[in-house]
């Protein structure tokens, strides 16, 4: 904002699919196996072998594409993308060129200037999602003596979904929001674990800037594809860096630093230095000499098949946010935070909210107490000691306490593993039995028929005399509980 140009970003996201085996053979698709222990003649690219498509990989891809609101092609095929690199033993990557299985989708993401405070939806359009195979891993000699590189082919031939967005992203924050939404959705759907550290989610950013001209036209700078982005944060930093660099280069040479005069370049992101390093001019698509893969037959997807996959998909994060907001009266922001915690947390919330009959209170107590406790205790929700029923009882039983006392009771319950009442006692909060308080209220009313009559006659203030009496006789009793009991008893009187 405030810059004399517009940043334009399209993202290419690659995610590894959560299959047991590779895309075209039965070797394990698993991170961290000993080097070259998950290979066979098919994925080593031996002559005379034939690939056979993994049904699960195709189904997970369909699920992801539907979640990205993509159109599913009725007919799809695979193509060979030819290039030579040591981690690609076949000398071509089996990918999809002109007939990808899905295209033209969109994803709604939160682009609120402070995503911790609000929810402003923006639609990022998806060009296509296609299914291809991954390459192996090369490890280069860092000694500087030019030693051999080491190649591990375990990853070769594992299934990879490539998701290409339109250049609809206009800020580094939007890019991160988009990636977070993709990751949340694909995790929730069981498509990918999306661990950037393990390489199961990788992202390349296509970046340039548009500089408005006084005559109303726009100058676009040459496209740069940034690779080696190893965290969401580095995606944001690289986009900021590259946009500034483009603005400077354009200012120096506005006639020539333009998309129509320069080839697209590829740059690597150097995270420690915080700079991009231009690597090469991108080979044109024709240089990959794509041609149809003769060893795989096409796949035809019927409308019924699409509907079956859609039905099995379950609720998407975007649908879940809307439902949580309408069904439980949560703000868009609270619904987003809760959804971002994943389906198990949403289920926990729904149970607590159902017992309390108060979604807002359940959401508030989860965010002040449970989220930070899980972080502090380094626990997953599945390991959390309080069941939804126990937590709901805690929320109900501490509603009247000051925030600090409530926090202490909660901590005691977790740390000491004790019940709500025991935790209150440990923290030094007197436990009042509601039925005893009700008896006290009834007694106070019986002792003060005049005040009851005045109240009935319309003098609201008369209630305070009774309340004061009860509170005086039961020091430390929760004021709001006593008020509620009194209101209930007065209504009956």
């Amino acid at each position, binding site marked *: 904002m405030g810059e004399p140009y517009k940043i334009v970003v399209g993202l290419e996201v690659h995610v590894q699919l959560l299959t047991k085996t590779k895309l075209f053979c*039965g070797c394990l698709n698993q991170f961290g196996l*000993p080097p070259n222990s998950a290979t066979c003649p098919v994925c080593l690219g031996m002559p005379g072998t034939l690939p056979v498509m993994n*049904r699960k990989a195709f189904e997970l891809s369909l699920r992801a594409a539907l979640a990205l609101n993509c159109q599913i092609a009725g007919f799809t095929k695979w193509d060979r993308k030819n290039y030579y*690199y040591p981690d690609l033993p076949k000398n071509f990557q089996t990918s999809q060129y002109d007939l990808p299985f899905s295209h033209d989708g969109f994803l709604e993401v939160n682009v609120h200037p402070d995503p911790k405070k609000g929810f402003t939806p923006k639609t990022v359009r998806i060009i296509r999602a296609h299914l291809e195979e991954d390459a192996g891993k090369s490890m280069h000699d860092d000694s500087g003596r030019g030693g051999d*590189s080491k190649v591990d*082919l375990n990853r070769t031939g594992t299934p990879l979904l490539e998701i290409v967005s339109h250049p609809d992203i206009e800020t580094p924050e939007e890019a991160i929001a988009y990636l977070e939404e993709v990751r949340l959705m694909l995790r929730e759907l069981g498509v990918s674990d999306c661990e950037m550290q393990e390489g199961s989610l990788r992202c390349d950013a296509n970046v340039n800037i548009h500089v408005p001209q006084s005559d109303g036209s726009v100058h676009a700078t040459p496209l740069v594809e940034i690779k080696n982005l190893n965290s969401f944060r580095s995606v944001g930093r690289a986009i900021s860096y590259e946009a500034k660099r483009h603005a400077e280069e354009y200012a120096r040479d506005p006639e020539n630093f333009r998309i129509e005069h320069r080839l697209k370049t590829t740059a690597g992101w150097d995270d420690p230095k915080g700079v991009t390093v231009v690597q090469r001019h991108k080979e044109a698509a024709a240089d990959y000499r794509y041609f149809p893969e003769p060893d795989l037959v096409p796949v035809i997807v019927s409308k019924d098949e699409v509907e079956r996959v859609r039905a099995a998909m379950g609720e998407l994060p975007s649908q879940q946010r809307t439902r949580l907001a309408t069904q439980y009266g949560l703000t868009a922001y609270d619904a987003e935070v809760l959804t971002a915690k994943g389906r198990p947390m949403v289920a926990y919330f729904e149970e607590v909210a159902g017992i309390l009959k108060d979604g807002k209170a359940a959401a508030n107590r989860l965010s002040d107490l449970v989220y930070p406790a899980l972080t502090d205790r380094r626990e997953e929700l599945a390991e959390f000691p309080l069941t939804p029923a126990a937590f709901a009882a805690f929320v109900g039983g501490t509603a009247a306490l000051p925030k600090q006392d409530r926090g202490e009771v909660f901590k005691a319950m977790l740390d000491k593993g004790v019940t709500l009442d025991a935790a209150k006692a440990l923290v030094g909060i007197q436990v009042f039995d509601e039925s005893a308080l009700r008896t006290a209220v009834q007694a106070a009313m019986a002792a003060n028929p005049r005040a009851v009559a005045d109240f009935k006659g319309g003098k609201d203030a008369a209630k305070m005399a009774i309340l004061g009496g009860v509170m005086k006789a039961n020091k430390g009793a929760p004021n709001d509980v006593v008020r509620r009991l009194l209101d209930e008893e007065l209504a009956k009187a």
Partner: protein
Amino acid sequence: MSLELADVRKVAKLSRLEVSDADLTTMAAQLNRILDYVDALQEVNTDGVEPLAHPLPLQNVFRDDVPTPSLSVAEALANAPSRQGSHFGVPAVFDSDEPVSH
């Protein structure tokens, strides 16, 4: 369609083939003869013929996502000209034209 020497040189480079200038001329002539031969297909009338993605009348051939045994590391590496422990060893790539990732 006729290939120029420059086209053949480019295809050779993309295929990582080292071809002498003399061979380049021979190959250009041979490749052009192959292309002429394939050009004969242009004479076939294809009006009303749907494009074909695959010659076999098959579709939707899948396998279940069930693991099968892989090769041992020793077998996997048996044909490798060079090894680095349990890895394939390959000469370091310095050519700046080389793709970094795809």
